[in-house]
């Protein structure tokens, strides 16, 4: 375990992480390793001792009685479920004797009733444990979903920032990407915002269906000498959209065309698949 991971567990125990950090760590701790459990326990132990540095105060003397009274008032002690025959004793001066058969019958009855009560209580406790486990599992699932949504939101925010950055560039060229004429009736389209100062392309494609299994889309820089230079490999989402930022290699010189084809997963050094989008750059 790294020092950062140890420190994060300490800060988590102290409630000193941000909400997003705490959620992420909590979801990871749902499947914590023994080492992580140990480090977290150590951190909690450190924090548990901090109150010792405070000037000590004592509650009222009646506080303990109030506490113990609450326990017995709710019948929460084990003495209320004592199992076994009630012991009766007779002194030498007593004149009342219980027949043996009656005492035995009473003992058996008490035993049977107590046994049934214990079994019911145990069953009830087990039910509650199962409910608690189910609730814990559901909470862990929800936390994981929350972390996933937060990550998605962060991703969207990042893309928005990239787009804003491109739009605000001083030297900006807009390039449209369209399907080759043979498929002109479809809505698939793309845009390139070329920040000429930073030599970056912000690319957005729309309505480009996800590629077939085992394939991905690939972007190409095509120079005036018809050479196709491979760039980014990407996928579209279920809605057919994708956004990305790519650096335009300066050593290529002028770019004549941008094109997107589908290729085997991981990309290809040369175009082999169908052209889905193409646009004239300069």
């Amino acid at each position, binding site marked *: 375990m790294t020092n950062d991971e140890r420190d994060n567990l300490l800060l988590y125990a102290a409630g000193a992480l941000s909400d997003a950090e705490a959620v992420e760590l909590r979801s990871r701790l749902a499947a914590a390793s023994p080492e992580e459990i140990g480090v977290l326990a150590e951190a909690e132990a450190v924090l548990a001792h901090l*109150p*010792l540095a405070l*000037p000590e105060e004592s509650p009222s003397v009646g506080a303990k009685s109030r506490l113990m009274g609450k326990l017995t008032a709710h019948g929460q002690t084990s003495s209320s479920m004592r199992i076994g025959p009630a012991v009766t004793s007779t002194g030498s001066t007593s004149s009342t004797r219980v027949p043996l058969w009656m005492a035995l019958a009473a003992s058996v009855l008490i035993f049977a009733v107590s046994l049934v009560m214990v079994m019911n209580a145990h069953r009830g406790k087990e039910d509650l444990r199962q409910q608690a486990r189910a609730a814990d599992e559901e909470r862990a699932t929800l936390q994981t979903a929350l972390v996933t949504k937060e990550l998605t939101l962060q991703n969207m925010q990042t893309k928005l920032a990239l787009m804003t950055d491109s739009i605000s560039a001083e030297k900006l060229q807009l390039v449209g990407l369209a399907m080759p004429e043979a498929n002109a009736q479809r809505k698939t389209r793309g845009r390139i915002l070329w920040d000429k100062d930073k030599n970056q392309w912000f690319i957005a494609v729309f309505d480009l269906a996800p590629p077939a299994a085992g394939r991905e889309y690939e972007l190409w820089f095509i120079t005036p000498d018809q050479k196709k230079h491979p760039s980014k490999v990407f996928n579209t989402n279920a809605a057919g959209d994708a956004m990305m930022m790519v650096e335009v290699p300066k050593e290529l010189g002028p770019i004549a065309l941008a094109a997107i084809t589908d290729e085997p997963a991981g990309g290809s050094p040369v175009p082999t698949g169908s052209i889905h989008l193409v646009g004239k750059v300069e």
Partner: protein
Amino acid sequence: MAVNEANLDDITAMAAVARGEPEGLSRLYDRYHRLVFTLCLRILKDRGEAEDVLIEVFQELWERSARFDATRGSPLSYLSTLARSRAIDRLRSRGGKIRAASLDIEHAGQQAQSTGATPGESADLGEQCQRVTAALRALDPEYRQAVELSFYDGLSHSEIAAKLDKPLGTVKTYIRQGLIRLRDRLQSRTADAVSGANSSDE
């Protein structure tokens, strides 16, 4: 933290609580009620409310003893964490203004030796008190102040930043670094104590 005789007593007391034996809870209460009450009082600034939370904490310990896992922490950790959480919940639910008192570390170091606790408890808790006090005192003043306001007074990071008139990021750094240094110092002192005890046994 090394397992010592006191921790074993706590674990057996918790086992008794899990079996529904009030004597177990009574032992834990006798040992830790002042610590829990002190922390609650520090956060809530009201003796009546602090006592209510004290009772709630031990009652919850009783009711949920089955959830306690000795492999994941000691009863002291469980009580301290629960007490702080419940006190802060009550503080925020009553919507009261949070006032931070100054920490009298010197006074605390002396008082821990005169609690009237049993000799065994005094020896153990007093030693721990000295260790924690020294570790806090050794922190840089700004780190210590931020840790105290966060841990002892239950202030959020934003509230601490407003109180100290510092940027929020600075306050977070103070708290993080303060806690990390505190942990490192306490763990190194524990290791020294354990190695010292081991060498004296040989």
